[in-house]
């Protein structure tokens, strides 16, 4: 748990993160300039169009109609063309930006250590990689452009209107003030209420998730009504807030429409007076009304775009928060030419940041090449942490772990993780083919090697799946039993023939018979590798040459199973179930 991941609020200017993303736009600079030019021309055309209309209406003679009409056609086509060019050319840079940041984010996340990932739920990371990036994309791609375009359009149209007939122009400009004011206020309220709805929907989703995953428990206890009641309560909350939200936007959109209509009425009244006094032609009045309506959308959308800007800054912060997390586990530079697999833990300690007591302290252990050590300890004694230190899924906080004399922190991660392979208790399967799940980082593995590994793990059942090794498993594919999954995880670990094999209670879900078969096969594998076996059961301990007893965060005893059984009462307490069972058996 690196300390720097624990401070989500960094003292940075909100816009700083967004500004830092400009580098992603750099490769597209030419296109961006083009888009801006095209956008401005588009505005010009959209303003020119009603002006041509004015000329048509005020035309003095029929001969003027045709050229003016053709001009109108030309300007109309130009406007459409400019919109087309802007949108079409924009596609690539805008999506490129999003895609590149997402790629980089993913790459960075894969580099960040376990400590980071155990602090961050994958859902939070996903929302950064999807929702936040889309928000940024929309702002950098559209929002920013529209913001500037709107301002340009607003000022130009206002100038044109003032030029046409300044009293009316002034009136129109004045009517923009309440709209801007209200839409800014509206956006603030709207964002707040939208977030509230989102949060409440999140709570509702959590309930749904639990009701789906915990369906057995709910059914087993017949608590359908209880679960329904809490769902209903939460759903009604969403309902109430949504109704408020609807009311808010209903008011706002109504306001948006009513102001321009009122202005229109006033313009007509004053315009008519002006026409009466000869201060204005009819054509100008018509053009005036059309142009005026062009202002409604840019003004109304200002609030929306500003809100979008704000949101994208928050999003950028959220993305940068992850990007700025420095991987606490850094790559070393050394390699091992011909690894033997001599593993030593030298005074190793591990403490979670901020924790009072260390999980592990003063752990000394020497595992010679080819030797297998079983690690035994009660739940929570730090066995899994100990095994995670070897492939550097976490780093020691004191002491060191060495392989063939190299501190693991000095080794290249790729080399280290080639030497060490781990089979975890809770096997992770990905929604991919069996082959891909087995080979993971070892794409060069041959079918022959895959078969060997499957045989060791007693997992040849995969050949009987509908598409054999090509069958998709994991969440989105064929579902496998706990025992089957564990056997695949084991096959994955032995596939690369690692020099050091770590088995973290890998056989817990197997039935007795299968376990015996797997153990038999594992014995061969472990003869050629250095092994660390975390064990709960006597049968698994027997795979090892010697046993290390982990108590109170350190190794208190090392010896053979029999020795420990005879000499160490704590060990007997942990493993020697037979003693007390046979006593009871004898009593009967």
């Amino acid at each position, binding site marked *: 748990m690196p300390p720097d991941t624990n401070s989500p609020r960094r003292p940075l200017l909100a816009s700083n993160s967004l500004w830092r993303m400009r580098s992603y736009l750099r490769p597209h600079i030419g296109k961006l300039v083009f888009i801006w030019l095209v956008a401005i021309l588009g505005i010009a055309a959209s303003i020119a169009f009603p002006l041509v209309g004015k000329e048509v209406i005020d035309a003095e003679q029929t001969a003027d109609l045709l050229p003016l009409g053709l001009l109108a*056609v030309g300007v109309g086509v130009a406007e459409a063309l400019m919109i087309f060019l802007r949108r079409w050319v924009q596609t690539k840079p805008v999506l490129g930006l999003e895609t590149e940041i997402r790629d980089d984010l993913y790459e960075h996340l894969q580099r960040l250590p376990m400590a980071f990932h155990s602090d961050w739920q*994958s859902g939070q990371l996903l929302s950064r990689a999807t929702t936040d990036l889309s928000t940024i994309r929309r702002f950098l791609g559209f929002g920013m452009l529209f913001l500037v375009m709107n301002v340009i359009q607003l000022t130009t149209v206002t100038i044109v209107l003032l030029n046409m007939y300044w009293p009316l122009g002034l009136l129109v400009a004045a009517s923009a003030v309440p709209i801007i004011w209200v839409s800014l206020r509206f956006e603030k309220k709207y964002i707040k209420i939208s977030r509230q709805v989102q949060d409440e929907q999140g709570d509702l989703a959590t309930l749904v998730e639990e009701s789906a995953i915990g369906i057995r428990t709910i059914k087993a206890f017949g608590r359908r009504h209880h679960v329904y009641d809490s769902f209903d309560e939460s759903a009604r909350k969403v309902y109430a807030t949504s109704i408020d939200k609807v009311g808010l936007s209903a008011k706002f959109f109504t306001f948006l429409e009513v102001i321009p209509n*009122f202005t229109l009425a006033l313009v007509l*009244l004053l315009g008519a007076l002006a026409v009466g006094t000869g201060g204005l032609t009819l054509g100008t009045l018509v053009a005036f009304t059309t142009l005026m309506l062009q202002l409604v959308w840019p003004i109304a959308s200002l609030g929306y775009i500003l809100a979008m800007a704000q949101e994208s800054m928050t999003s950028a912060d959220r993305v940068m928060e992850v990007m700025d997390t420095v991987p606490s586990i850094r790559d070393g530079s050394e390699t091992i030419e011909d690894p033997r697999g001599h593993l030593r833990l030298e005074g190793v300690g591990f403490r979670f940041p901020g924790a009072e007591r260390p999980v592990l302290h003063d752990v000394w252990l020497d595992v010679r090449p080819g030797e297998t050590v079983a690690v035994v300890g009660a*739940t929570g004694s730090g066995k899994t942490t100990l095994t995670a230190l070897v492939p550097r899924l976490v780093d020691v906080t004191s002491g060191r772990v060495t392989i063939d004399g190299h501190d693991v922190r000095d080794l290249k991660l790729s080399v280290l993780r080639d030497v060490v392979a781990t089979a*975890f208790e809770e096997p*992770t399967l990905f929604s991919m083919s069996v082959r891909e799940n087995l080979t993971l980082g070892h794409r060069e593995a041959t079918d022959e090697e895959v078969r060997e590994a499957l045989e060791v793990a007693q997992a040849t059942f995969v050949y009987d799946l509908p598409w054999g090794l*090509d069958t998709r498993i994991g969440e989105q594919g064929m579902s496998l039993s*706990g025992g089957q999954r564990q056997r695949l995880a084991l096959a994955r670990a032995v596939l690369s023939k690692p020099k050091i094999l770590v088995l973290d209670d890998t056989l817990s879900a197997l039935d007795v018979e299968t376990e015996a078969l797997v153990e038999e096969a594992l014995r061969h594998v472990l003869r050629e590798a250095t092994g660390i076996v975390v064990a709960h059961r006597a049968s698994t301990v027997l795979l090892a040459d010697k046993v290390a007893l982990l108590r109170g965060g350190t190794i208190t005893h090392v010896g053979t199973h029999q020795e420990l059984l005879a000499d160490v009462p704590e060990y007997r307490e942990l493993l020697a179930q037979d003693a007390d069972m046979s006593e009871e058996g004898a009593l009967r």
Partner: protein
Amino acid sequence: MTTATDWRGVASENKDDLPEKVSLLLRTRSRKLLTDLLSPHRKAIALLSAVIVCSSGAGLAIPYLVKVGIDSGIPPMARGEGSGTLLTVIAVILAAAVTQALTRQAFLKMSGRIGQDILLELRRRVFDHFQRLSLSFHEKYTSGRVISRLTSDIEAIAELLQSGFDGLVTAVLTMFGTAALLLILDVHLGLVALVPLPILLLFTRWFRRQSALTYRRTRETVALVIVHFVESMTGIRAVQAFRREPRNQEIFGQLNTDYRDANARAMQLIAVFMPGIKLIGNLTIAGVLIYGGWLAFHDEVTVGVLAAFLLYLRQFYEPMQEISQFYNTLQSAGAALEKLSGVLEEEPSVPEPPRGAELARARGEVRFEGTAFSYVPEMPILPRLDLTIPAGQSVALVGATGAGKTTLAKLIARFYDPTEGRVLLDGVDLRDLDETTLRGAVVMVTQENFLFSGTVAENIGFGRPGASRKEIVEAAEAIGAHEFISALPDGYDTEVGKRGGRMSAGQRQLVAFARAFLADPSVLILDEATSSLDVPSERLVQRALRTILADRTALIIAHRLSTVEIADRVLVMDKGVIVEDGSPEQLVASSGRFAGLHQAWLDSLA
């Protein structure tokens, strides 16, 4: 060797894929659901229609009034005959604007409320239905799909109700109204203005089809990005331990690019459509200007009419763009509705009896009478079983994986119904038992010890509604969980975290045991319930089990024979048949399978 794309592997079905063609005409079941949801709001919808017609009418009237103002209001004023007409027109415009504002606000509020009512009703129905559906359904359907039905699908419909519906109704009314008004204002000019209409319709149809394709593609590609992303992050331990990063980056890059391309296609489509509409609109306006200008010059139309035309044509083309946006919303809502109605159509395979028999206090005698069970007819899991478990007996079930132990247990818990014969509790067929009675009498604890978010006490209390804190603590004490719970930061009020993530597997299991104990069932089923405990905890539980099982019927399934020892009776199963039956001592003494297993177990401990 793997190529770039075959990493995903093959799966037989992708149930969540969007239907090949989501037509606007929904299937009967979806239509029925829709009618059903709408029918309580029939009156409100009628009122709503009236309101929206008023609102659109008022909105449409304004350009016409502008025309009247220009044509009839200004000339008399210019002639110095007073401004009476003009002022009247202005007053009417203001009135129309106010009417439009008020009716529109009413419409938005009412339709919003109806929409939310429908959503709430739909959420309730689907949730309740999922909870009613049998376990066999859930096993096939998987929790992921249940979750997306109740979240993303409902949201798709919400999206339609919130934004799309309003947009569509307004757009359609405005378009028809405008077209009619144009013709009324001036037939010739109106016809010129409406000439491009067929082109517009064809263009929109083309766009709709294309956008259906791109939309589908975007959805598919983003789904793959999300799955890959989430799985990489949740499985980061395996990813890093096995140096999976480069390969993952390669796959992610490809998926990301696919998603980008799909998005690009969608954006380009809009890049063609939006200016396309604009072009048609502008050309129409230009045409109207030329022809209208010519007519006006020859005094065949007034300037007011021309101005009204220009205002109306703007109104006419703007909604077209909204309709195109709306189409995607409509489509995804349609697909969501199809899926939801499909779920609601599912019948629970284990239905609750309408008026079930109630037992005051079950004794706990379980009897199988000619019971058979199979998923597929030709492959029976349990061929035919006759078995009586007297009240109060503890029975251990032993056998290899797939012998039918769990099936037997699930039949007693009525997670499944037998395909033949019956299962009886105290002489009553389980299918005739009242749901509450059954669930109060039979409780099953599995190795999936699910904890709900909330406190430890709440999780234990889940076993019995309304249990007091004292009872909860007593249950924890009886099971031997009190000690570790008291040591937690907030004791019984400690939040367990998401799915009990802040506790070890063993601790979660102890809480699950306490929950089952609190429920105080007459029949307790333990399916591999102790397998995730380490030996000391298991021993603790086993000690507790002796007390817990003393006065109730129990069925214990365990791979580990240590658990079996506490049973009164052992049943050895093989391929759905009970092959050995007797007390543990008897079976150990005989030379059957159990004796063999027992010996192997003893050896493994040596």
